[in-house]
């Protein structure tokens, strides 16, 4: 039987032709579809691409009309690019690698309006980070002012001790103290063992005083010294743990104190009385727009960090997680100095910030480099630098660094800008707020994430501000708020972010909140003061009792745990010094040596 058919080669050529034409016709649409799909998964919103054109022999890829919708504002794009051009290394492409030596992104624009909504029909659920941001802002929405104009001065706040978060925290302090004390009681055996070994070392030390072989004594002194050093290290480790435990208790006290003022505000708010807290007011006036921008920035930072961490883990792990069905896992076998499977070496960016700057044009340019599928092999961080300045005084700089080769992967974004007009920007909500009709602002900030730990600080300073108030409140309160908002001629906002995603803290401070709180306090002078004081007194009474209980459980803890450890440490230190002296010959009888 002949396995190779007559004319098989002709048919093989036919097969090749079928395969080639299918690939040639389907490659660009398939790539466009894949890019859109990947973009949607990353953005959590629609991604539009007008066309994708690849030229295999030249090794170029051109993407036109890219628009990535903002999941938080679906009628806006986070970013839009008129053209993206990539020059691929053909040699690397033949090895199945996408190495982009040079790229150009032209016509970059941020925050542009969309004709149709960019929301997905089935949007992904909000991430832990987004939920944390929402929770941080939701509480202040109504709490700051409550139903201030309508509420009667004799409105009563019902205090339910079981619902007070601060009291619960004090219970936690007490429980923690007991847990720590019990744990340290369990460690008594170890302490006794250390004491026993220390006594043994002391006996050994004494025996060195008599006559005998000098070398043996020196060896014994060295052994004792090593033993004592080990014991000191054990005691030091215990002391460090003890200090950590005690610090944890102090931290809980601090949290309880913060929760106490939140409890007061919560009770006042529940009774319809305004808290008039400047932080809450700042959050209410500036929280929503700030959170939308912050949420978008943090989403993309988190996405970049998680992608890099996953790639790093997959490349480094010997037992990677099970991949998706039929997808498998690509394992690289690079020689030294080989390229990773994907590398964007250098991309030149050019665009404008017209929409982000209330229509004023600011050309920006920059470089994106080091984006790779194998961070460990590449060994360098991915960086982004974008800057621009205009003749009319506006300037903006943004730098980003993705520490993709580190564990945990970190991402750091710094930005700075000056000369921005605030005309047209609005603050607050329907009930209380306003529109800025003038003012120039400068902004600076840094956001950093290491693993799921976030920290950052953003500040905006504006001068020459004119605020047109929009206040629905009536009566004295409404008038006071209106006057306070009108009086504002400069603006300073500071937003801090810290903590893990599961316990994210967002701090807000602004002169706007302070000015408003003062005005409101004057307007309501005497009206709510008595009620507020009454609530505070009641809460204080409950707190004092609990605090006394908690203090009773924790006060002696430091001396109970740290006292014996400190004593043990000083004894061991002294013994160690003695041993050192003896090993140097201080207490040894060296007379015979020079006979």
């Amino acid at each position: 039987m002949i396995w190779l058919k007559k004319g098989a080669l002709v048919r093989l050529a036919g097969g090749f032709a079928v395969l080639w034409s299918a690939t040639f016709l389907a490659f660009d649409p398939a790539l466009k579809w894949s890019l859109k799909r990947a973009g949607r998964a990353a953005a959590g919103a629609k991604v539009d691409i007008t066309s994708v054109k690849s030229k295999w022999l030249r090794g170029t890829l051109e993407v036109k009309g890219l628009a990535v919708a903002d999941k938080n504002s679906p009628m806006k794009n986070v970013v839009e690019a008129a053209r993206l051009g990539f020059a691929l290394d053909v040699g690397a492409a033949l090895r199945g690698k996408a190495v982009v030596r040079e790229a150009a992104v032209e016509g970059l624009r941020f925050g542009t309006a969309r004709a149709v909504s960019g929301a997905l029909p089935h949007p992904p659920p909000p991430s832990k980070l987004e939920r944390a941001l929402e929770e941080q802002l939701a509480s202040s929405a109504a709490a700051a002012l409550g139903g201030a104009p309508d509420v009667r001065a004799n409105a009563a706040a019902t205090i339910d001790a079981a619902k007070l978060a601060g009291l619960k925290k004090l219970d936690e302090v007490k429980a923690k103290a007991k847990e720590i004390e019990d744990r340290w009681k369990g460690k008594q055996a170890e302490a006794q063992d250390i004491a026993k070994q220390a006594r043994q070392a002391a006996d050994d030390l004494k025996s060195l005083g008599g006559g005998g072989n000098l070398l043996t004594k020196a060896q014994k002194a060295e052994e004792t010294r090593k033993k004592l050093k080990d014991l000191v290290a054990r005691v030091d480790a215990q002391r460090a743990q003890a200090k950590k435990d005690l610090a944890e208790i102090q931290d809980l006290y601090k949290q309880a104190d913060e929760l106490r003022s939140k409890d007061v505000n919560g009770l006042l708010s529940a009774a319809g009385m305004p808290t008039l807290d400047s932080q809450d007011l700042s959050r209410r006036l500036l929280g929503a727009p700030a959170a939308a921008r912050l949420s978008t920035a943090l989403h993309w930072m988190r996405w970049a960090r998680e992608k890099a961490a996953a790639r790093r883990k997959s490349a480094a792990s010997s037992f990677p997680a099970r991949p998706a069905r039929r997808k498998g896992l690509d394992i690289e076998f690079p020689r030294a100095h080989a390229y990773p499977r994907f590398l964007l070496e250098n991309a030149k960016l050019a665009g404008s910030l017209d929409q982000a700057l209330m229509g004023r044009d600011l050309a920006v340019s920059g470089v994106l480099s080091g984006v790779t599928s194998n961070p460990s092999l590449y060994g360098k961080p991915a960086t982004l630098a974008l800057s621009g300045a205009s003749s009319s005084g506006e300037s903006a700089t943004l730098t980003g660094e993705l520490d993709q080769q580190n564990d945990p992967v970190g991402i750091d974004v710094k930005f700075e800008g000056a000369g921005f007009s605030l005309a047209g920007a609005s603050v607050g909500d329907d009930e209380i707020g306003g529109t800025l009709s003038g003012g120039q602002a400068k902004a600076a900030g840094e956001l950093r994430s290491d693993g799921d730990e976030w920290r950052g600080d953003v500040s905006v300073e504006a001068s020459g501000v004119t605020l047109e108030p929009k206040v629905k409140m009536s009566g004295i309160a409404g008038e006071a708020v209106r006057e306070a908002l009108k009086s504002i001629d400069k603006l300073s906002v500071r937003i801090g972010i810290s903590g893990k995603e599961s316990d994210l803290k967002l701090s807000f401070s602004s002169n706007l909140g302070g000015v408003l709180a003062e005005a409101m306090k004057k307007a309501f002078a005497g009206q709510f003061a008595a009620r507020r004081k009454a609530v505070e007194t009641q809460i204080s009474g409950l707190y004092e009792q609990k605090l006394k209980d908690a203090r009773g459980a924790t006060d002696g803890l430091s001396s109970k745990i740290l006292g014996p450890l400190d004593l043990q440490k000083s004894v061991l230190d002294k013994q160690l010094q003695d041993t050192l002296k003896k090993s140097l010959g201080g207490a040894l009888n060296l007379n015979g040596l020079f006979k």
Partner: protein
Amino acid sequence: MSPLRLFKDVLLALHGGGEPRHLAAGFALGAALGLVPKGNLCAAAFFLLFFLLNVDKGMAFLSAGVFTGLGYAFDSVAHKLGLTLLRAEALRGLWTALYDLPIIPLTRFNNTVVLGNLILGLLLYAPLYFGFLKALSYYDARVRARVEAMPLIKALKGFDLFENYKRWLA
């Protein structure tokens, strides 16, 4: 090549017009293509083998279709097999050499599922080939006569349509 033509090829082959070994080879080769994930040079190479080798293409494509579905069931085994081979220290030199060659990485041999399924396809080639031959001879000896004696088949044979169908097959 239309699906109808493929179906006709398979029917013709099963009704005594085809060489059993071509059918069996087509079945085994189709299974290998079916198991390997598509979209890489490895699958394209298998596809071209259909044209190059004297195998029954109809059976090969039918088998590829069936085994593409079965590939999902073999996914976990294939991944583990591929991972074991790709992580094997003894083979590291081979993979590194292959990875550094032009064209070869386009087969995606370094993907756990591709390599695992390729190995599974090659390992299953001989059992599937001989198994299919045996099944075919069993069908000819025991089942075929009974199938042709079935009232439905007889009824079909009574129709002019069947004559037309036979002419079409020829």
